[in-house]
């Protein structure tokens, strides 16, 4: 048989549990969704809340959100036993299923994102369609027959962008809260069955997206050899700092709830968290990935750090947060399955390297949005739009 998920175990586990149902790809799936929601948050801070300091990354954030969103279904499709039947859940949705409704929520959000991106980049698209070159026809098709860039038309576009961004806030965040619900609503696993799960997922999504944007923005400035906009970076650092504290508190509360309630099976959970989970959970997710960045950001904000030190400190903190959120997803998805439903045993998930649901596949799915983003920034350079809006503002 497929050796992928056959797990060794200790204690007593139900015989069918020795095949771990959800693999590393289901870790990647909420991770990508979270990055989408977080990046969109930054875009909305400018588009909806008018925070001018986020202007240099507003369009880039939108593009990032779109590129990652396009790859959200990929880990799911790779995981499905019958990916060719994936649309069964859309054609004949089972309305009590969180997963079926997720398809609609994700579809709606994707449409919204495409539409908002189109409006945001319309001036660029129209200009490129009028320029001579091999991509002229591509851009001409993208104009959808609308090449009016008059002040009236632009005002109309801005209204649309604002409206879409406003709808996008509950859509993006609802989408990710929903991912948390997929896990939190299951009563079969004590590790998942928590009312706080959707909220924890949501807040960790926001910090992961903001952290991603920090890293990408700094990297893009270095690549383009331009100066980093420090107020913008500091704004993102503030956002990361605030939401990271909230996330840490929520994650701590969730764990405290499980321990304090001490329901059936708690002995096995404690054996797990104080044993195999010490490094991935307490050390990487909490200490290195959450406490250290919060302390570092607090220090920089307190000391008024600026210049290269700020850039280095914030970027390093963002990298740690990205790692922490990934570990959070891992500890939830894989951790939940390593604690047997019997409450009397533990399983050991083995990650394969080369397999449809192995490490290489997971890394490829994570890497793909970055490649797409690189391509997209060539076709739709967000910096050009930012510069234009700066001039017109």
């Amino acid at each position: 048989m497929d050796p992928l998920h056959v797990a060794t175990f200790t204690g007593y586990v139900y015989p069918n549990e020795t095949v771990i149902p959800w693999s590393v790809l289901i870790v990647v799936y909420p991770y990508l969704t979270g990055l989408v929601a977080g990046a969109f948050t930054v875009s909305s801070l400018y588009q909806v809340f008018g925070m001018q300091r986020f202007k240099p990354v507003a369009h880039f954030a939108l593009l990032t959100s779109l590129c990652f969103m396009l790859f959200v279904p990929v880990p799911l499709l790779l995981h499905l036993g019958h990916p060719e039947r994936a649309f069964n859940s859309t054609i004949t949705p089972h309305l009590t299923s969180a997963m079926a409704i997720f398809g609609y929520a994700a579809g709606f959000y994707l449409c919204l994102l495409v539409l908002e991106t189109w409006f945001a980049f319309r001036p660029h698209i129209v200009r490129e369609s009028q320029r001579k070159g091999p991509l002229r026809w591509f851009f001409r098709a993208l104009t959808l027959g609308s090449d009016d860039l008059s002040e009236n038309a632009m005002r109309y576009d801005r209204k649309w962008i604002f409206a879409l961004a406003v709808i996008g806030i509950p859509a993006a965040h609802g989408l990710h809260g929903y991912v948390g619900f997929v896990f939190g609503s299951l009563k079969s696993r004590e590790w998942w069955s928590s009312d706080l799960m959707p909220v924890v997922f949501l807040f960790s999504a926001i910090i992961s997206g903001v952290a991603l944007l920090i890293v990408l923005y700094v990297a893009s400035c270095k690549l383009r050899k331009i100066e980093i906009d420090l107020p913008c970076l500091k704004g993102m650092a503030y956002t990361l700092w605030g939401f990271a504290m909230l996330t840490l508190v929520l994650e701590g509360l969730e764990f405290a709830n499980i321990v304090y309630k001490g329901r059936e099976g708690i002995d096995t959970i404690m054996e797990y968290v104080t044993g195999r989970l010490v490094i991935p959970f307490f050390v990487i997710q909490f200490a290195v990935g959450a406490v250290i960045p919060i302390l570092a950001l607090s220090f920089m904000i307190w000391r008024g750090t600026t210049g290269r030190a700020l850039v280095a400190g914030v970027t390093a903190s963002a990298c740690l947060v990205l790692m922490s959120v990934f570990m959070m997803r891992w500890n939830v998805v894989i951790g939940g399955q390593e604690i047997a439903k019997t409450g009397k045993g533990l399983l050991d998930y083995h990650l394969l390297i080369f397999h449809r649901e192995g490490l290489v596949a997971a890394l490829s799915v994570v890497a793909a949005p970055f490649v797409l983003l690189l391509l997209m920034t060539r076709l739709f350079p967000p910096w050009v739009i930012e510069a234009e809006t700066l001039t017109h503002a």
Partner: protein
Amino acid sequence: MKLQRDLSSAARREFLGKLGLAAGCAGTVAAGVGALGAVQEAEAKTDGGASFPTPDYDWTKHRWGYGVDATKCIGCLRCVEACKKENHVAGDAHHFRTWVERYVYLEGEDKPRIDSQQDPVNIAASGSEKEYRFANRYKDAKVEKAFFVPKLCNHCTHPACVQVCPTGATYKTKDGVVLIDHTYCIGCQYCVQACPYGARFFNDVEHVTDKCTWCYHRITKGLQPACVEICPVGARVFGDLNDKQSPISLFIRNNRVQVLKPETGNAPNVYYVGIDKEVN
């Protein structure tokens, strides 16, 4: 398989019928309404239990239930073997529609030692993953109390697996059995996660979810499930809850029965006698 397909298409027809009605009211998708209306009509003809799943079987007239008398089980595991053969379940240690757990309390120990036929020690004793045997591993120990507990899908009244299935491929029949349409399941395994009893597994051949059907292909022909039929001591009981004199009705009436994990609210339909507090 065909049986499952028939039953599921009935459920799907019902859904499509409702969808058709909604679409009609909204006045949308004019072409679709016609097609769905036809489906609705077809459903009206077939519903009422005239022909499911065998020509003379009426699923509205039965309400199946299952009983396990753990005081009788001797752990021979013939039920596991019969089930595997009857239902073509993969012959390995990771896929079971039914299994048997052994609980052994040793002198001086608070917690029982639990294993089932899939434990590596038991596989070593039988010599193969396809042979099922409990190793005599406690022969030199002082055993205070020991018993066996057969397990299977509980065919819950409020099945969590059905609730989470995104396509409706897994569904509850009118006679109380939870089935899976293998031709419609997408293989997401959300139901595997949702089942608190570990009754579901992934079928690696068909790439869909699988589990016990109480041998639906047999019970609809008036036969017993294979595990019940093969049990040499009558530890497994099956019958129609609508029939007050059926083995299951008598089993429930004459015993103080309990179900597994009642706190989940799933309301299981497998009733146990003679199990201990550690069994879940």
